[in-house]
């Protein structure tokens, strides 16, 4: 049963049985995440509907989140937390992209997915038809997906719903961009993540995390930037104790 396997390793081909309940027949799969009426069930990445149960399509840890409000029972969202490097665009994700083409009034942005995302020149804070943003080919863009569907070109914007940049836009001209696995990014972006807090105590630096596995770092000197980048890369395979030791060694030197 699905409930019991939460937090355990599941493999592709496993079938998770759901606790049956009367309304199960008329149940439909809601489309977007966060659109789960109470008692309804959402299958996240790595899961697929299969009869009355869920079919696992990726290997990893099974996760579950209870539906908000009076959901309870069989509701909530199930997903598989897996380790992968290839990014698949998801609506609402904040990502770092590289501008590849300037074509008329849109930019093509490489986000690491199967297809390049499009970004309108009007989707920047304060941009108008007259006042175009200064974006060159090769620049880094931090933006958000507003359209991300299967087999469709995803679309990015660099403003939020109220037209504010809110931290998004073109990333500065220096600093280092590097890639890590998607699992590490999720780990680092978790509110309870200690790595970033511990790193912040060493010296000040700027950092941007993209859900597509890209990290941009800028510290005062090149040496410091490189240290931050290498620590973050190494963190994936370290336990908490190893990390504290490594940080202790760093703060000494």
């Amino acid at each position, binding site marked *: 049963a699905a409930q019991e396997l939460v937090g355990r390793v599941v493999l592709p081909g496993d079938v998770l*049985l759901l606790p049956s309940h009367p309304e199960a027949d008329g149940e439909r799969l809601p489309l977007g995440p966060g659109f789960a009426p109470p008692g309804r069930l959402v299958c996240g990445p790595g899961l697929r509907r299969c009869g009355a149960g869920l079919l696992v399509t990726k290997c990893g840890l099974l996760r579950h989140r209870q539906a908000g409000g009076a959901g309870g029972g069989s509701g909530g969202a199930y997903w598989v937390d897996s380790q992968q490097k290839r990014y698949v665009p998801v609506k609402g994700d904040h990502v770092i992209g590289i501008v590849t083409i300037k074509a008329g009034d849109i930019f093509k942005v490489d986000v690491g997915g199967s297809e390049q995302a499009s970004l309108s020149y009007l989707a920047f804070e304060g941009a108008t038809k007259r006042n175009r943003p200064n974006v060159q080919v090769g620049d880094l863009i931090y933006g958000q997906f507003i359209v991300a569907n299967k087999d469709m070109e995803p679309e990015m914007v660099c403003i939020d719903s109220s037209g504010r940049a809110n931290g998004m836009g073109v990333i500065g001209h*220096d600093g*280092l*961009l*590097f890639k890590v696995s998607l699992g590490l990014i999720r780990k680092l972006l978790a509110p309870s993540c200690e790595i970033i807090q511990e790193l912040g105590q060493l010296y000040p630096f700027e950092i941007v995390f993209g859900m597509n596995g890209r990290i941009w770092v800028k510290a005062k000197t*090149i040496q410091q930037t*490189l240290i931050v980048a290498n620590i973050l890369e190494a963190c994936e*395979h370290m336990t908490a104790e190893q990390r504290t030791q490594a940080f202790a060694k760093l703060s000494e030197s």
Partner: protein
Amino acid sequence: MKETPLSNCERRFLLRAIEERKRLDGRQSYDYRNVRISFGADYGCCIVELGRTKVLGQVSCELVSPKLNRATEGILFFNLELSPMASPAFEPGRQSELLVKLNRLLERCLRNSKCIDTESLCVVAGVKVWQIRVDLHLLNHDGNIIDAASIAAIVALCHFRRPDVSVQGDEVTLYTPEERDPVPLSIHHMPICVSFAFFQQGTYLLVDPSEREERVMDGLLVIAMNKHREICTIQSSGGIMLLKDQVLRCSKITGVKVAEITELIQKALENDRKVRKEGGKFGFAESIPNQKISAFKMERAPVDTNDVEEQAEEIITKADPPSEVFAKPILQTPGTAQIGEGIENSWGDLEESEREEQEEDNSDDATTSGVQKMETEEISGVSKTKKEADTIILSDSEEEVVVVLEPEETRKKTRTHTSAKQENSSSKKTFNKKRKKKRTTH
């Protein structure tokens, strides 16, 4: 798929870092990445890792008729392949410019330097010679393919053994490895390529450039050399002007690097030979490093062990004499054996097998299944006592529960009247049972 473009800020950062004599992975300008050589289970198969660049080398041989103008020489054939597995930028089945360049360089490095004695590959002059084929596959691309490929090629060639042949009159006899030990190729020297990347029109120089460094470099110089400091090939690309003393300095560095790598190769070959001789573990599977993403651990579940012995005794006395049906294990292939009939494969659907088991439990007639059940309970009782003391490997996944059950003294005490074979036969059931136990405790 298109290659991920290099952003302006990466380019700028890399160039600035190089000016400050720093590299992304913390190396010095003249440092090589770690070279790791592992061998496959067969002769002539190896994987060379240069940092994260990975090349698989495989040598094979065939008896063919020689080329007309070289009747007494064996044929050497090199083929490097760049598959999309290494990098999404590589397209399958197309000869890219890079691939042609790399293949040509490899041929020049290994064939034209006459490092392999081709005359020793001749079986019957003008009729039969050995054709040695070296296939190199790039498994992961992180820059400096040529160095990794040249090391992989020479290591695979050194490791390779060809079948022995004998010629009597016109008759050529080919011996299998069982009849006669295969013979190694005769290798005169080991040419190894070393790459140098130049930046800012040759102002800065880096040894063993990584993928991102290769993208921002102005020019590349590849020198192939053996450990006797004889240059086998030298190639400069990228169209930069190199000064005479720069080339000389590069060749000096190459000499040092080649000596180090050659020593490493010989050590690796020696190690492999030793391991094979002693019958230890070898092959790729043994040489993969374990990298754990997160430590999967399972808390030890406390199990009530009071009056287990009494319970076990009681069960034994109540139980019917064990049936003789599955006394004999059937050896299907070396390594896998089947014991008894009708035992479910527990690797499949968990729920189903469990449900079946429960049904089995319910049926109370004294057929074989009933006996099986008794057996199961009996052993689970025993293993409960063992749980506290013995090594039980518990992994996180329920499917992967592996219980090491060695014939133990505690067991023999309680089950003296059952044969050892039956003990084995029911151990599979035991772990099904235990899994259920564990579930109930959660």
